[in-house]
């Protein structure tokens, strides 16, 4: 498969990345060189192979937890004991590029 200019523009939009015209050209070249290499995987017949998203799915220490991410998260000790305490508001806001004493401040959300 070969990516096109249009793909690069579309993916940049999805990724919330503004690219200059020059960057778009470089990206198209790099993407296609990597994708050409990645096509190597098509040599393998994987129709009967299950996908592997997480290592712990395979060696799961607790058999009952295997295979289901949701189940693993549901048994997190900190959640079982109730939700973890939030950061104090001042600390949570301390790294914000723009905030008042209570909120993160952002440009108008209503216009995209």
């Amino acid at each position, binding site marked *: 498969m070969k990516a096109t200019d249009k793909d690069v523009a579309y*993916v940049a939009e999805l990724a919330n990345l503004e690219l200059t015209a020059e960057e778009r050209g470089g990206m198209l070249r790099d993407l296609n060189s990597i994708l050409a290499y990645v096509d190597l*995987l098509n040599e393998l017949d994987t129709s009967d192979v299950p996908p592997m998203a997480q*290592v*712990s799915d395979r060696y799961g220490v607790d058999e009952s937890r295997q295979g289901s991410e949701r189940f693993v998260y549901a048994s997190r000790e900190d959640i079982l004991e109730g939700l973890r305490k939030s950061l104090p508001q001042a600390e949570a806001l301390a790294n914000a*590029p723009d905030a008042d004493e209570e909120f993160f401040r952002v440009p*108008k959300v209503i216009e995209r």
Partner: protein
Amino acid sequence: MELNSLTIEAARAAVQRREVTALELAEAHFARIKQEDGQIGAFLTLSKERALEQADRMDRMAAEGKTLPPLGGVPVGIKDVMSTRGLRTTAGSKILENYVPPYDCTAVARMEAAGAVVLGKMNCDEFAMGSSNENSAYRPVRNPRDLGRVPGGSSGGSAAAVAADMAVATLGSDTGGSIRQPASFCGVVGLMPTYGRVSRYGLIAFASSLDHIGPLTKTVTDAAIVLRTIAGRDPMDSTSAEVPVPDYVAELEKPFRGMRLGVAKEYFGEGLNDEVRQAVEAAIDKLKSLGCEIVPVSLPHTPYAIPTYYLIATAEASANLARFDGVRYGHRARGVQTLSEMYRRSRAEGFGAEVKRRIMLGTYALSAGYYDAYYLKAQKVRTLLTRDFDEAFRKVDAIVTPTSPTAAFRLGEKSNDPMAMYLADVYTVTADLAGIPGISVPCGVTREKLPIGLQILGKHFDEAAILRVAYAYEQA
């Protein structure tokens, strides 16, 4: 006493016996950093106040005759992808230039609880993406063994600091080889534990199913000491495993004779530098002469590891890096009118070229129409790669390979060719995909005196076995 060449054991013992104070030890390392780091560039941020406070605490313990904890007074460095409360953490990126985390990474907290003195934060490739440390937004790290060469990436600062005696030990992170490859290039020991052995809480995520935290040290014993300190279940990371942590240091002394070591032909094919091949083959002969059995094994899917890795790592990275939107922390572009403009421009200004390239590839691989062809396909091949190891480990206790196909390359040599750079990880990525542990130990130098690394891979949660092989080799 030469204060800058001590191992963890020697440094702690010296502080305990009050032959040197932890304060003097820290000062000696800061002096060394001042003298050397202008050229090398291993540190991004120094934490002198935090270090001296901890050193003072350890000195008072020693003065009171109390037994110091295992890392008592030992000067260490932390790769700048691990959060440190109150201490700037950048992940090597401009987007986090002024970020000061409100909490500590579990591995760092455990190091400090064990008495370690944190000197500062180590330079690295931006968001741990790179094989040469040339992708740091701040400055490249230079290899202390040859300043014209790269230290390897992405834990290049962590490896270089240990190699140049600016820290006794450091923490790095490994997603595709980022602890083992720089350890190999700089001539130090680098250990990647099993996935889930060490909590990732507080690690700035690159690819969550592949990220591992581990130590870079001067000796195998030191690697065992650090692993013993940081390993074990952490309720803050649901993927950290509830598996007992052995005393890795005691494990080193267990018999090595009779262990079965696998050698896979796929790791000795085309692309392997001759000098590296000779050094690794000599190391394997030496292990054989020490009493282990060498067994040929096959890892037939190895040629598919790099494409699989780049699809999975970039897909996960594109999701993880979505949190950098200029709202809660990090860089925000000025003069923007709308929210989406703020996102797009902040990210454009904050991320470097390699990070953008990987976000784009990952987003592409996950996007509608390409998910099955790329991301799902890669996950299936990941299963095949993992089965290769399962099969091999039915026959052997550990597998020995070169860590990297070449010794350290020159700065700039591969920086314009992403594919060439990605291939530097050809022998390391498979272990990350399978989640098995791996260690790199020095096994000689090239004619140009550049270090060569021997990689030893083990079964899930069997770090003890690879440490034992590495230790036997190191001691021989």
